[in-house]
């Protein structure tokens, strides 16, 4: 019976143990995370051509190593496609911001621990030992970069820490949240350790650990020694002469020249001083070291704490649903940014507090944006969803984006057009948006004043009348880049080489465009234009001929010498050629663009290829021409549209590529690689000289 009881007890304990193990929780993304990114490795890995990517990465690493004294002879990693990181798994990245700490963390899945270790060993500084913890190992590959890993997971953490200074403006007692985090985290970690079976104290391991600490601290000290030696010289000099050596006129650096030394009266000692080696002041060194040590300790502790937290969890990341609200599982990269946190807290937080309209700006920025990026075969697509955190503000922003269509404007798009940008917003609602930003703003004691100010604004401003002047429909159409001859002065020489001014001409490219917007008050615009032709200061350049007013620059040498404007059928036109306002035949393609430009509150299109052809004459140098040829071969078309979708403002930007690369991701790589080679050429030519 006793044995049955004992067995039952053992089984119960075992089961309880299992429950405990499986009850390990997901790691929650930190509360102060303002940036979150998911990289869809499963999709993206298929799109990367490592045969092209690898040699390029190798070249860049080798170039960087050569620049770095410590890594001059270090061989670069041979195959970046094999680093032990499982590239076809999802990667999770996030960034946190607060008053003193900015961190960037990336979580990877490993498929080859040995390879990953090899990779880390090739990246870290020579002689730097790997620290072994209970559930993971880690190494600091730089003062602020830490990498931790266990069998199948790795975490990269980049941490920047700056001790907050006393805030002189507000005289608030500044609490270093990082230190608080460190302290509280220590407490948490300690209790976590207490629950685990404690390892017996191994003094050898501890000695090794402390030695590693010394090693990494020595690395930091080295960097400061040169500066310390320089300051030491200054101190010794001041001790001897009670003043700095007099500076040479015009010189910016302190110079211990022989002449100046004569003024000081001890030339031979001065010369000695140049050559004498001074021992580094121990007090000074201690102070510098302690600052670096303190900083490194905090950063290291923060990294360790986050690693502990992660490797003691079930290794999954728990992301708040709000961050993932707009994530599309089919996108290659998903990014969430909390502008409210980045602007109002973090590094910008204190600057913001010193601004006059702090609360207004804080409210205006209190939004988040999500981005889904797709590297498709024929285009790159970026979809952005903007959302204001205040539901009322979001609604009033959305209302602004609900404008009316205007077919007279979209008729200006034609087959020749290089690009256009169309706006169909509700101008009258923009006043409501401003009011909603002011509403419930700031301290309760001023709320009445703010409300009164808003009421006064509403009385003074006749929003409806203002909105009638330009209700919110507008379009800019770039039709072509035209060649224009301009004269310039050059010098010729006679046979005795006396110079003589001569007039020559050259071609420049000028834009041919039309900008038009709807108006509900034609009379207002006619009065404005009439004023321009009657006012004695402006009448020199402004004239009226038929239905068009025109502006002409007398010099006739600029990009915009003549502009025409007129008001017709509820539209105000501003154009470089009167032809532009006459609607042209639209093919199926331009009909499609016209339809899109009427449908969306904001939309645009730019055919960069056509634009580059027009700008050919502006590219003069060999490398410019080479870049132009390259771009002409590769460059595509950009389309842009914004609309209200559900609770967000959605903007889609497409970049259509030419079918020269295997997909749009490699397209960018190919293009970048080619431009990189062109840029490198002058450097190579220089070296051969």
């Amino acid at each position: 019976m006793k044995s049955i009881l004992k067995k039952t007890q053992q089984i119960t304990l075992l089961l309880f143990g299992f429950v405990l193990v499986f009850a390990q929780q997901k790691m929650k993304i930190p509360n102060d995370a303002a940036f979150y990114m998911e990289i869809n490795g499963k999709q993206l890995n298929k799109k990367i051509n490592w045969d092209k990517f690898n040699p390029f990465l190798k070249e860049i690493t080798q170039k960087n190593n050569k620049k770095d004294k410590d890594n001059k002879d270090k061989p670069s990693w041979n195959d970046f496609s094999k680093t032990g990181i499982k590239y076809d798994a999802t990667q999770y990245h996030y960034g946190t911001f607060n008053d003193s700490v900015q961190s960037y963390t990336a979580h990877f899945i490993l498929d080859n621990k040995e390879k990953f270790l090899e990779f880390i060993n090739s990246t870290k500084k020579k002689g730097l030992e790997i620290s072994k913890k209970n559930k993971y190992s880690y190494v600091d590959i730089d003062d602020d970069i830490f990498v931790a890993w266990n069998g199948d997971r790795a975490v990269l953490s980049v941490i920047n820490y700056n001790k907050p200074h006393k805030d002189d403006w507000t005289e608030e007692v500044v609490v270093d949240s990082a230190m608080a985090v460190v302290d509280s985290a220590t407490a948490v970690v300690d209790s976590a350790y207490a629950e685990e079976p404690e390892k017996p104290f191994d003094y050898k391991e501890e000695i090794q650990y402390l030695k590693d600490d010394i090693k990494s601290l020595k690395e930091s000290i080295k960097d400061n020694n040169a500066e310390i030696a320089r300051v030491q010289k200054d101190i010794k000099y001041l001790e001897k002469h009670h003043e700095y050596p007099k500076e040479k006129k015009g010189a910016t650096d302190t110079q211990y020249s022989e002449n100046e030394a004569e003024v000081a009266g001890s030339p031979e000692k001065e010369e000695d001083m140049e050559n004498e080696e001074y021992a580094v002041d121990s007090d000074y060194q201690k102070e510098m070291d302690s600052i670096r040590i303190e900083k490194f300790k905090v950063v290291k502790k923060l990294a360790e704490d986050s690693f502990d937290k992660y490797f003691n969890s079930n290794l999954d990341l728990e992301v708040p649903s709000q961050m993932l609200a707009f994530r599309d599982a089919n996108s290659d990269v998903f990014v969430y940014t909390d502008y409210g946190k980045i602007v109002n807290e973090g590094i910008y937080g204190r600057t913001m507090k010193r601004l006059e309209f702090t609360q207004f700006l804080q409210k205006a920025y209190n939004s988040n944006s999500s981005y889904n990026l797709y590297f498709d075969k024929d285009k790159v697509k970026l979809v952005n969803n903007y959302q204001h955190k205040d539901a009322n503000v979001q609604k009033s922003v959305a209302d602004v984006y609900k404008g009316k269509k205007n077919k007279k404007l979209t008729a200006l798009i034609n087959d020749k057009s290089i690009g256009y940008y169309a706006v169909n917003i509700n101008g009258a609602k923009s006043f409501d948006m401003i009011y909603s930003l002011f509403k419930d703003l700031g301290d309760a004691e001023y709320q009445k004043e703010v409300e009164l100010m808003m009421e006064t604004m509403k009385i003074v401003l006749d929003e409806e009348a203002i909105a009638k002047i330009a209700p919110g429909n507008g379009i800019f159409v770039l039709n072509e880049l035209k060649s224009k001859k301009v004269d310039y002065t050059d010098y010729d020489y006679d046979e005795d080489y006396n110079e003589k001014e001569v007039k020559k001409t050259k071609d420049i490219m000028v834009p041919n465009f039309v900008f038009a917007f709807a108006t509900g008050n034609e009379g207002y615009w006619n009065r404005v234009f009439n004023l321009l032709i009657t006012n004695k200061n402006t009448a020199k350049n402004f004239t009226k001929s038929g239905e068009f007013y025109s502006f002409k620059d007398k010099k006739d040498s600029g990009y915009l010498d003549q502009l025409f404007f007129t008001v017709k059928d509820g539209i105000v036109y501003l154009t470089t050629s009167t032809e532009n306002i006459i609607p042209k035949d639209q093919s199926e393609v331009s009909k499609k663009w016209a339809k899109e430009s009427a449908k969306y509150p904001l939309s645009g299109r730019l055919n960069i290829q056509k634009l580059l052809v027009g700008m050919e004459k502006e590219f003069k140098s060999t490398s410019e021409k080479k870049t132009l040829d390259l771009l002409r071969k590769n460059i595509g078309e950009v389309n842009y549209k914004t609309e209200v979708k559900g609770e967000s403002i959605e903007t889609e930007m497409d970049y259509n590529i030419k079918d020269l690369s295997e997909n749009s991701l490699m397209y960018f790589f190919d293009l970048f690689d080619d431009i990189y080679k062109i840029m490198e050429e002058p450097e190579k030519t220089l070296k051969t000289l």
Partner: protein
Amino acid sequence: MLFLPLLLLTSCFDIIDKVNVKADGTGEYTVILNASKSKTRLASISKMETINGKKVPKKSEIESKINEVSRIFKATPGISNVKTSVNFDNYIIKLSCNFKKIENINAGLEQLKAKNILGKMIPTQIYSQNVGKSFTRNKINIFKTDYDKMSTADKEVFNNAKYTSVLQFENTIKSQTNSSYLLSPNKKALKLEANVLDFILQKKQIQNTILFQ
């Protein structure tokens, strides 16, 4: 180098520098900066406050700088009849003066350097002469250090820049050490024309020693 901030904004400019030396060693020095080819671009840029992070100098600032150069040259012993002109329609800046001996020009440039109008790296000992016997255009090669420090975008500015040096003499030239200089039919003038970059990268040499008959 004097108007480097302005030059960096242009895509194309020419520098002409001319020395006319009489038999007694006196003469006239002229320097012309011609950015007329880029005048459309400059006219647009001049309406902006900054471009590519660089401040666009105002017309008044350029004029006051030219006046300062003129004042410094006027105050240099041996230099007289200093004339300056700035043409903002064509973006041409001119400076001319008479000198008692060519070394006065070196001294004038030295003064510009002392007043921080010319950069510390700019050479000032450009010319020397042995009146009636020889004239020397000294070697300069330190622009490369400044050029190397520039960004790629700034370097591009020099790709189309042209430099012309004209040396005219009352005496007849017997020989010269640099054949890049073209000799005029009357054998009293020399002209060197090349891209500024050729001098910076030392593909072409500027130094020359001229012996007279």
